[in-house]
């Protein structure tokens, strides 16, 4: 088949530029990063430092706990709101939807600033609490502030996923369950949640992976909060500890990639993280 051979050659040429750029600027540098990870004074054990070194281990655990907490909270909040928005028509719904999706394009730094606006030293929560309780509540620059920020950038994304999935649900199943006497709660538990499961799993994985790797928000709120991306950043820039920074970022990359890959194999379809 001369035609097939010609097609194959043509296709190879069309793919070549993208692959060349990817190899030169990502694959080779990342390979080097992995090598730098074990060529420090500690050797290969740099990769295990994240479990053997108490400080890095604490950083890993707090990042994982934070990301899991954010994922759970986001799924509940966005699940309720997304389901409500697909099931009900009311005036102003379009505007509401536009407002809910506006923050999608915010970089992490802007999200951090939004948290400062809410819970910072001159923030709204501080003003209100001072007025009501006579005491300024300020939590932007702590773990609670990070949680708020990660919730902020996760909610819009998950709402969109939930809405897309909920539109495809067969409402006849719910009708059937209801007519057989199921309570609203049982309809949610036994019909709606199982139907939304693939979407929830993939949205949850994206949310988890994004929170694990988020840097901008933590950077804006406080460079002293001990989450993994900040730890990597300080090791690299403040202590010039290249091998540890390299090893930790490879470990972090493997975690986020694995979370996405696992979710994809569970949920099917395409899962990828975003900013």
């Amino acid at each position: 088949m001369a035609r097939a051979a010609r097609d194959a050659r043509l296709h190879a040429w069309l793919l070549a530029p993208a692959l060349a750029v990817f190899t030169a600027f990502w694959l080779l540098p990342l390979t080097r990063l992995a090598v730098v990870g074990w060529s420090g004074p500690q050797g290969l054990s740099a990769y295990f430092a994240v479990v053997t070194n108490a400080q890095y281990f604490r950083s890993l655990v707090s990042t994982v706990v934070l990301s899991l907490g954010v994922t759970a909270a986001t799924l509940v909040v966005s699940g309720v709101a997304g389901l409500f928005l697909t099931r009900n028509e009311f005036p102003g719904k379009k505007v509401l939807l536009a407002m809910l999706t506006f923050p999608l394009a915010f970089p992490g730094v802007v999200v951090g600033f939004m948290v400062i606006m809410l819970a910072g030293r001159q923030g709204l929560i501080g003003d209100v609490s001072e007025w009501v309780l006579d005491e300024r509540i300020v939590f932007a620059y702590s773990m609670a502030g990070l949680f708020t920020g990660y919730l902020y950038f996760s909610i819009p994304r998950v709402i969109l996923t939930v809405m897309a999935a909920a539109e495809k649900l067969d409402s006849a199943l719910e009708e059937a369950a209801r007519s057989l006497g199921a309570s609203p709660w049982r309809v949610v538990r036994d019909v709606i949640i199982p139907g939304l499961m693939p979407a929830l799993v993939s949205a949850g994985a994206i949310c988890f992976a994004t929170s694990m790797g988020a840097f901008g928000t933590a950077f804006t709120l406080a460079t002293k909060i001990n989450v993994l991306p900040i730890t990597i950043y300080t090791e690299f820039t403040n202590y010039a500890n290249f091998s540890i920074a390299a090893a930790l970022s490879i470990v972090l990359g493997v975690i986020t990639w694995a979370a996405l890959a696992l979710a994809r194999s569970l949920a099917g379809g395409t899962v990828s993280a975003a900013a």
Partner: protein
Amino acid sequence: MTTRRSKRFWIQLAFTLLVCGFLVVPVVLSVLAGLSENFFVGVKSGLTLRWVGEVWALYAETVYRSIGIALACLACTLVLGVPAAYVLASRQTRWTRAIEELLVLPVAVPGLATALALILFYGELRWFRQSWLFILVGHVLFTLPFMVRSVVAVMAAIDMKTLEEAAASLGASFRERFFGVILPNARPGILAGALMVVTLSIGEFNITWMLHTPLTKTLPVGLADSYASMRLEIGSAYTIVFFFMIIPLLVAMQYMSGAGARDKGERWKPAR
């Protein structure tokens, strides 16, 4: 649909409005802060464009640089991504799937890791390290998957093979088929991908923060800078500038997805 709403409706509506408030209130606050004389006193201290003017004097070049990088990034992702997407859509083998997986890696792995890798690998090349091209490379890696995905999705939905064969049987060369048949049919995917690429590039921080130098600051880098070292009004005014830049992009995206949903029925469907 009943006109009489149940109690559950109102509870859920209140909850959704609360969520919306959580997202929108800080945006409104920062816009007010950027426009008021003194945010600590409040809006009653008077509205002013003074802070926006100061931001422009301090940071205008970051805005121009971000736009320039975003457009250059768009050009790169078009040239690299559209041909690649064509191959990935027309050939569904183990190899092309593996390549698709590979190209997505810079999105699946935190930007910090990509940035460190680039610095360790190319940091010695002084001219490259100090130029805006270094940032461009990071942005292209990060946005390319979005362009490829978007174009592949549209190409998979149209019956590209039949269209191409029809054109080929009429004697069109590959170049004529690619530019005359494939690209026009893939236009919605290319447009959607382009909007995504520009929006992501303008807002990119995680990679850019590590790659920038004092002479190659982008808008988000400048934002982080102003949040850390300027008074709240300036940071807020700068954020308003950022909002102004992304709102048209978001509106265009919403319009595109609306238009896409409307003419879905008329689109070519695979004849299986």
